[in-house]
């Protein structure tokens, strides 16, 4: 590595640690590595906390394949496909980044420019995909009922989950309307009112003998959620407290509340890293165009942001495994 590190042409040594290079690494690169190390430990802390919580609720944790099943523009259930595409996008943008670094070693300004550009585009596509993933997660697709003891009850027909809209009929009849700025206090907006009331759902359940309730409990011999009998279902449904559609930080239709909290927090924190990576890449991209590094005599800055960008990819590899696969 030492070979490609020319001395700073502008003689400003302050940000270069006075030109001293322990382990043959420049000040900036070394500090980038130690920042990455600390950031890696932060992410490990989050994923370890996720692991603890999952072990704590090991017999009732949501099954990822049943939660993340959507692909844009296509109807139907395709577990894993969409996150796999996102993973490819990020790995590919990592490749263009490393190609930019490689072109930088050859002092090829034009190539560095184009590869940086491709990397930025890849990053933007990834963040956009993540936004879509969040939108789908928040909106939900089936709806469920939450009981007074905090359990989520989903509805199934012939062993497959069905949406509330598939068997609950009619409009809300209990007269509850959403509080908006127009009909309430002008500075307050109420929480969105679910499409159906609890009483409606219970009536529809009683009226449709082929509907069964799926509990959160996992049957370990099958690794599937336990589907309750009609009688048992009516019994647990009597404790229904609210209808849940989609997800927020307080309730979600997929299962345990803290599952959605971890989803928002960990993928959100990662998405924020990608976003800041894009911003930093754009800054470096313009510096490349302006010829800053050409004049400096080396493209080490591209290498340093490259390290950060690869790290973001590295974290996603782990998030992908522990959120979607395991």
């Amino acid at each position: 590595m030492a070979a490609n590190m020319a001395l700073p042409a502008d003689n400003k040594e302050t940000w270069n640690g006075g030109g001293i290079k322990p382990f043959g690494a420049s000040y900036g690169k070394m500090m980038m590595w130690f920042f990455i190390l600390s950031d890696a430990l932060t992410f490990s802390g989050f994923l370890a906390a996720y692991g603890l919580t999952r072990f704590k609720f090991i017999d009732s944790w949501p099954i990822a394949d049943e939660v993340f099943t959507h692909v844009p523009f296509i109807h139907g259930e395709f577990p894993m496909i969409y996150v796999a595409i996102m993973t490819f996008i990020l790995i590919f943008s990592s490749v263009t980044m490393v190609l930019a670094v490689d072109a930088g070693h050859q002092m090829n300004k034009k190539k560095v420019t184009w590869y940086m550009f491709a990397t930025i585009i890849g990053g933007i596509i990834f963040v956009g995909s993540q936004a879509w993933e969040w939108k789908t997660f928040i909106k939900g697709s089936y709806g469920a009922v939450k009981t007074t003891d905090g359990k989520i009850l989903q509805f199934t027909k012939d062993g497959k989950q069905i949406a509330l809209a598939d068997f609950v009929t009619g409009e809300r009849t209990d007269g509850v309307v959403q509080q908006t700025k127009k009909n309430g206090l002008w500075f307050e907006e109420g929480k969105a009112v679910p499409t159906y009331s609890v009483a409606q759902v219970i009536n529809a359940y009683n009226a449709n003998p082929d509907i069964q309730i799926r509990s959160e409990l996992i049957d370990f011999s099958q690794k599937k959620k336990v589907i309750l009998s009609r009688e048992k279902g009516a019994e647990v449904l009597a404790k229904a407290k609210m209808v849940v559609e989609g997800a927020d930080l307080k309730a979600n239709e997929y299962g345990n509340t803290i599952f959605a909290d971890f989803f928002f927090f960990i993928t959100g924190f990662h998405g924020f890293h990608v976003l800041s990576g894009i911003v930093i890449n754009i800054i470096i991209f313009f510096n490349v165009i302006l010829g800053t590094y050409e004049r400096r005599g080396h493209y080490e800055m591209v290498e340093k942001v490259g390290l950060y960008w690869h790290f973001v990819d590295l974290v996603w590899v782990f998030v992908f495994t522990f959120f979607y696969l395991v």
Partner: protein
Amino acid sequence: MAAHAHESNTKRIWIVFGILSIITLVEVYLGIIKPESLHLEGPGTSWLNWIFIILTLAKAYGIAWVFMHLEGEKKWFRRSIVWTAVFLIIYLVTLVLIEGDYLYDTLAPLIKW
């Protein structure tokens, strides 16, 4: 590698990209079909989960060594990063997962399904 910093490593980069892609495809394939013999049994967690974790570590190695060019750094600089992370993460994860298991053993009997 370090000695040839000016040489182009483009070919190697594409090979690593190919390997990372194949690993991802294998993961996704196994995640979709979930072979029963791997999915429902195994030590601690299922065999399938062990496969996923090992493949993930293989990908992490590929990214860190080739893309982040750790292979070209001085040995002890590399170790100051990798060993620190690996030691602390293993330590944290071990303790925290044992604790999670304990919480399950303690709390699960209190939940009525």
